């Protein structure tokens, strides 16, 4: 196998494991991160000459452990935890189960509620995802130095404040898992509709990374309904990715997408997960918001076209979602389904009621613009498109809205 491919594959598959096991052993994220990075750098140097080791993960963990111990000796740390770590140096490797537990610990630590949301995102992508600081900085359009500082501060807080390195107790698990899912959903959404003029409108690196990490959580917590729901939601969204962007770099609305270009394998996997959760709901488990959103996307991806779509089913799911999350954004999305069932007039009335809270949100104006256009109210539609274009941060969406506005008679 090509050595470079072997290194990048090992990086994808082993980074989180290496960081996680070192963090548990040395009780220090900083040491774990640096030693893991050094071990991968050593692999890049050595594997071309020495060959790829039969078990790359074990090789990387051993090498990283040595690097960490070198650093601790160099800095002459006297911490009990470090002394203990040095003493257990020759302990036999842990079972796979223990290592997976470590990765879960790592995720919960990076997504701890005592850290700011943007810090959680950055830390998760760095420590669990293995993205470099420049990569994360580029993804979120922040300066590298600022991001580096944020990560350094977070590691210092974790240490100083005693944020524990463990899987939360059963009683705290549901809220803590939902905190982790919120981080992953945010990463996914930034890739799904990237903000800013200097970036690709769709960031497949971010959506793919979010899916990869959600798969990891799913493997670690297979019984959690919301984890399955979020994974299904991401897969069913990702399945449409090639159809979402025209060759001219314009966002393509659901009604106009070439459904033949949707990824059938991702849809099949997403539908399997949704069916699994429907069976659980039938058995009495109340679905959370990701499961409901996944079900809505399952209805869309089951339809041959807009007219074939089971809109009453979608509306029923939105009604269920409103009961869980009565936010104006959910109400806005519900109105889109109302337009298909009861017509644009009824939907517009529902949308207009949201003006106070959503006036600064581009999707509010884009939705209004589309409803006004369908009602033949051209001047008002144009004004709404103008407002949406002004507020939209995504270049492909701006292009789409501009074309729609210019097509108004």
């Amino acid at each position: 196998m090509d050595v470079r491919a072997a290194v990048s594959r090992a990086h994808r598959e082993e980074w989180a494991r290496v960081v996680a096991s070192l963090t548990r052993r040395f009780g220090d994220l900083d040491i774990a991160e640096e030693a893991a990075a050094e071990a991968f750098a050593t692999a890049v140097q050595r594997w071309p000459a020495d060959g790829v080791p039969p078990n790359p993960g074990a090789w990387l963990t051993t090498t990283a452990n040595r690097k960490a111990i070198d650093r601790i000796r160099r800095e002459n740390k006297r911490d009990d935890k470090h002394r203990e770590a040095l003493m257990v140096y020759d302990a036999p490797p842990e079972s796979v189960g223990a290592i997976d537990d470590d990765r879960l610990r790592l995720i919960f630590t990076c997504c701890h509620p005592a850290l700011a949301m943007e810090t959680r995102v950055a830390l998760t992508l760095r420590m669990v995802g293995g993205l470099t600081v420049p990569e994360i900085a580029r993804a979120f359009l922040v300066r590298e130095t600022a991001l580096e500082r944020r990560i350094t501060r977070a590691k210092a807080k974790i240490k100083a404040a005693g944020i524990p390195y463990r899987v939360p107790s059963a009683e705290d698990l549901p809220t803590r898992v939902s905190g982790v899912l919120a981080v992953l959903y945010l990463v996914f959404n930034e890739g799904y509709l990237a903000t800013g003029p200097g970036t690709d409108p769709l960031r497949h690196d971010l959506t793919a990374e979010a899916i990869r990490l959600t798969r990891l959580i799913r493997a670690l917590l297979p019984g959690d309904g919301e984890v399955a729901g979020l994974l299904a939601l991401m897969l069913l969204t990702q399945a449409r990715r090639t159809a979402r962007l025209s060759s001219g770099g314009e966002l393509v609305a659901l009604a106009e997408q070439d459904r033949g270009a949707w990824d059938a394998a991702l849809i099949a996997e997403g539908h399997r997960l949704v069916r699994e959760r429907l069976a659980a709901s039938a058995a009495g488990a109340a679905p959370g918001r990701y499961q409901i959103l996944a079900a809505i996307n399952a209805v869309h991806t089951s339809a041959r076209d807009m007219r074939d779509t089971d809109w009453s089913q979608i509306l029923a799911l939105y009604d269920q979602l409103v009961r869980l999350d009565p936010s104006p954004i959910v109400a806005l999305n519900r109105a889109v389904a109302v337009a298909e069932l009861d017509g644009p007039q009824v939907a517009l009335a529902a949308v207009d009621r949201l003006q106070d809270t959503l006036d600064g949100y581009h999707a509010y104006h884009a939705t209004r613009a589309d409803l006004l256009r369908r009602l033949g109210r051209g001047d008002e539609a144009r004004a709404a498109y103008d407002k949406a274009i002004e507020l939209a941060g995504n270049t492909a969406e701006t292009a789409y809205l501009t074309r729609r506005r210019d097509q108004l008679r």
Partner: protein
Amino acid sequence: MRYLVSVIDDKDNPGSTDRQPAISAFNERLIAEGHWVFAGGLADTDAATVIDNRGEQAVFSDGPFVESKEYLAGVWVWEAPDLDVALKLAAEASKVCDRKIEVRPFL
């Protein structure tokens, strides 16, 4: 680990004044569970005096070192194995005191 737990009140929107029995009961629990190190309510910030003796002679000035709408109304020192335990107790303390709580680790 040891944490300084600050009870924060708001001059414009003060918490209720009938919390003492609930706080006493909560303190009993902190003691029983081994978290209690110290607790004390503070007099009004008007009663504070700031001393600066870094120069030639000590300067005393009336009032707190910083004037703000939000101020420290009391403190605890807790012993807890980690931040999760401290945060859980702090969430209860906020209800018990009807005020905001800050948790900050000692070095």
